């Protein structure tokens, strides 16, 4: 950056530094009319500065992750594997004097998945201890991947299927203290699948009534970029088929996440375990599209999205991270997991695993962008996401 000539200024500044101008520079603090020779100019920030000022003033970066009230744009995936999705969004966070929040959005992804959703939230009940939400959504996943069931499924057997899901959901969440949250809810889910190639899989179209209860202990220091603390979540869900599809089941999900750090929290070790156990009612079975899966951007990153699926699942993850700069965190990770039709077959001796490295970009408060390069799976995979891995 170079400085421009400042003729009069130069003369005047010498009034302090040199005796030649001193006589005219002292003796009065009274404002006097500007000499005709003095001309000033308005601020003319450089282009980069104008851009950055506008970015900040309009909170555009923040609004990428937390949309502003009013009409806006929804950016993000509809589900993991949908690819980038974009669409209109609307929200209002202070209806009825702030007692009610409402939102609605629609999105279309590059894989032709689409979703329309709307909902209202009452976030401030019982002096902010209780939160109630009701929402409705219609989702069309055009090309869900399917490789078969179980950990021995082969990638070459890849096919796709379509999934339509319509849901009306309600939930109540109670947070008696900062680190504890207890939730429960009811939902109606209507699901339809299409284009299923494998005749062996159980793929009924059905309507579920779902009830769920969950508890979460979360004492991470910074939930969106934690350096210490842990999060322990357990949820029990019952999916009751409302018709004669004989597809009722219940599922127990547990997620344990612990963060350990050293050297002023500049070195981080994260240990995570995810377990999902399902049990179908007597004489019933669990539809394949309701099974949890491994592969993708979170669980077994060395494998493609939905690479393994079955009724039960377990994944163990370890990630070592170190700060390169306050904005960039590098990581090495290893993870192993498996799926099985029966709980007793969830043997850690027969897991699929992968390892890799990655970078987390953001601030101390949140990871805004991450990249992972994962090896050891079916192929080397490069992942980019606008969120943390955990």
């Amino acid at each position, binding site marked *: *950056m170079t*400085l421009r*000539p*400042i*003729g*009069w*200024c*130069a003369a005047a*500044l010498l009034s*302090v*530094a*040199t*005796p030649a101008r*001193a*006589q005219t*520079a002292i*003796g*009065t*603090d*009274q*404002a*006097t009319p*500007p000499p005709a020779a*003095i*001309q*000033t*100019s*308005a*601020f*003319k920030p450089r282009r*980069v*500065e104008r851009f*950055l*000022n506008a*970015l*900040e*003033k309009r*909170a555009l970066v*923040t*609004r990428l992750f937390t949309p*502003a*009230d009013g009409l806006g744009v929804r950016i993000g995936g509809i589900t993991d594997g949908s690819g980038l999705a974009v669409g209109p969004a609307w929200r209002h966070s*202070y209806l009825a*004097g*702030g*007692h009610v929040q409402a939102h609605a959005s629609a999105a279309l992804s590059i894989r032709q998945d689409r979703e329309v959703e709307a909902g209202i939230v009452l976030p*401030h009940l019982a002096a*902010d201890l209780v939160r109630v939400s009701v929402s409705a959504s219609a989702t069309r996943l055009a090309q869900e991947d399917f490789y078969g069931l179980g950990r021995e499924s082969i990638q070459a057997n890849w096919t796709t299927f379509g999934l339509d899901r319509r849901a009306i959901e309600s939930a109540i969440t109670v947070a008696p203290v900062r680190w504890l949250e207890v939730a429960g809810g009811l939902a109606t889910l209507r699901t339809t699948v299409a284009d299923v190639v494998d005749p062996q899989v159980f793929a009924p179209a059905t309507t579920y009534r779902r009830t769920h209860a969950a508890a979460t202990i979360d004492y991470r220091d910074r939930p969106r970029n934690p350096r210490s603390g842990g999060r322990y979540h357990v949820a029990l869900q019952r999916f009751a088929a409302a018709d004669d599809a004989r597809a009722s089941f219940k599922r127990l999900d547990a997620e344990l996440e612990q963060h350990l750090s050293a*050297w*002023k*929290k*500049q070195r981080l070790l994260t240990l995570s375990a995810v377990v999902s156990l399902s049990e179908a009612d007597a004489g019933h079975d669990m539809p394949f599209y309701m099974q949890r899966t491994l592969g993708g951007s979170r669980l077994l990153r060395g494998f493609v999205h939905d690479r393994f699926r079955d009724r039960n699942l377990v994944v163990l993850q370890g990630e070592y*991270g*170190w*700060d*390169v*700069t306050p904005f*960039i965190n*590098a990581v090495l990770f290893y993870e192993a997991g498996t799926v099985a039709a029966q709980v007793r077959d969830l043997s850690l001796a027969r897991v699929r695993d992968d390892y890799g490295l990655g970078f987390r970009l953001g601030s*101390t408060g949140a990871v805004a962008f991450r990249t992972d390069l994962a090896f050891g799976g079916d192929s080397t995979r490069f992942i980019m996401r606008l969120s943390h891995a955990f």
Partner: protein
Amino acid sequence: MRSSIIGRLSLTLAAALAAAHVVAAQQAAAPRFSPQDPILRAVDRGVDAGAISRDPLGNYADFVLNTFFSPGEKADGRAALNVNTLDEVPDSSWFTNRSAMSLDEIVRGPARSARLDVREWVIIEGKDSGKQPGFRAIDAADPSRQVYQLEFDPIGNPELATGAEIIGTAIYHALGYNVVDVYLVDLEKASLRIAPDATIKTNGRARPFTQHDLRALLRNVARQPDGRYRALASRFAEGKNLGPFRYSGIRPDDPNDLVPHEHRRELRANRVFCAWLNHDDSRAINTLDMLVGAPGHHSVRHHMFDFGSMLGSGTDGSDLPWVGHEYVMEGQPAVQSLLSLGLYRRPFMSVKAPHSLRAAGNFTADRFEPAAWKPHYPNPAFSNMQPADAFWAARKLAPFTPEVIAAIVAKARYSDRRVSDHMIATLQRRRDQVLRTWLTAINPIAEPRIVDGELHFTNAAIDAGHASATARYELSWFHYDNSRGLRSFGPSEIVAMPRGVVPEAAFTARDYAGVEIRTRHADFPNWQAAVRVYFRREAAGWTTVGIERTARDASAWRLGR
């Protein structure tokens, strides 16, 4: 672009002229000293500045411009441009010499009253900048509707940010900077009322401020054992907000802003004060220009503000561990960390800080090196700091004795005595380290004067206890031709005490005389660089009119960007 009275001098030329004027005066035709020297008050309110507009500079731009570009002109060894002939900073709209303050005045700082008693606060606006939770409010009983910004401590660190603000404001005021009035207040939730038209900005858009916003705010801030909330009330400064001032360049629309900010001594030397206080947040965003004065007589008053992220405070918690040790973006340690897979242990990772004192954050004197201290990101004025700037700052800092520091810390009203003790001890240790570094960096001759025919001066480093009193002084007297800038050397002597007899006989019929002082000290060979002192004969005797400090090896001065 401003027209020129003396021609369109480039700044470079102007700076060179100003910085080198003492030396150049030997060849110059103009007298070096005018009858008005030394100037004690710079006139920077001479032209109406009413047409000035707000500087739109934001956080992002300030960070990017200072991190990836190099705004401002490099000092390259040149002295500050706004010093007078005594090498001091005259009073101005930027700075006021306040060395004569009493202890009570220092502790009171800029506050207009000893305390702020408000029975009911009316919230008029949410706070939409900075990390510290708070809002803007007025006293319901105040007909003038004076606006205050109320800010609270992070929930995990009671008294941390508010304590830092109180201490920082008092110290910066005593140092000579313009700061805003701040008060500690204890308030109950019942004393807060939301104005019907109060708004808050979320994601850049304004909406009504609701009870839920207030509840959410109070839920996430520290609360005292008695249920009340401790807050810092900052009185909005007088005048029209013009945004921040920058640490480089000048305000193009301020006709009185004459000295490029990176060449202002009080801004360059602020690096010393910031190092002492670990004020890493010392950047343009935390400064404030206010348009003051009556129509037709407007001028700009320059303030420092927002001291919530200093000492051990990071505003929303303890300060980040690398603060003061590294810029937020540092190439070499980043590469070392990356390639070593994190096994390279950066120096700041070994710093010992008081984890158990939450109100103190991580304020520590462990591994504190004043010359190596860094703000959050590069500051062009700090990067230009020269030894004489640092020496000036160190002398400003010397009066902060343990008694003064203790009195200022007491103003923060820490509820835990251990926190007060830690803050006092750490401020003292860091102050001593600063003084040891900068008072000894150049020949520390100070306060030269002639009294009853005898030269008296002090050695600032010895007086502060940071060098042994074993110095000897080589005095070389000269008479000075002010009109031609010529020195003619006469008698010289070596003395063991900081005084000497003026050889009046050699100066008969002379208006100007001087002495060149070189200090011989076994521990500080750099003190042999000459300090030249100029005196003018007046009716009452010889008056000190000029001090010129030379560096023994200016090229060795490398403070880094």
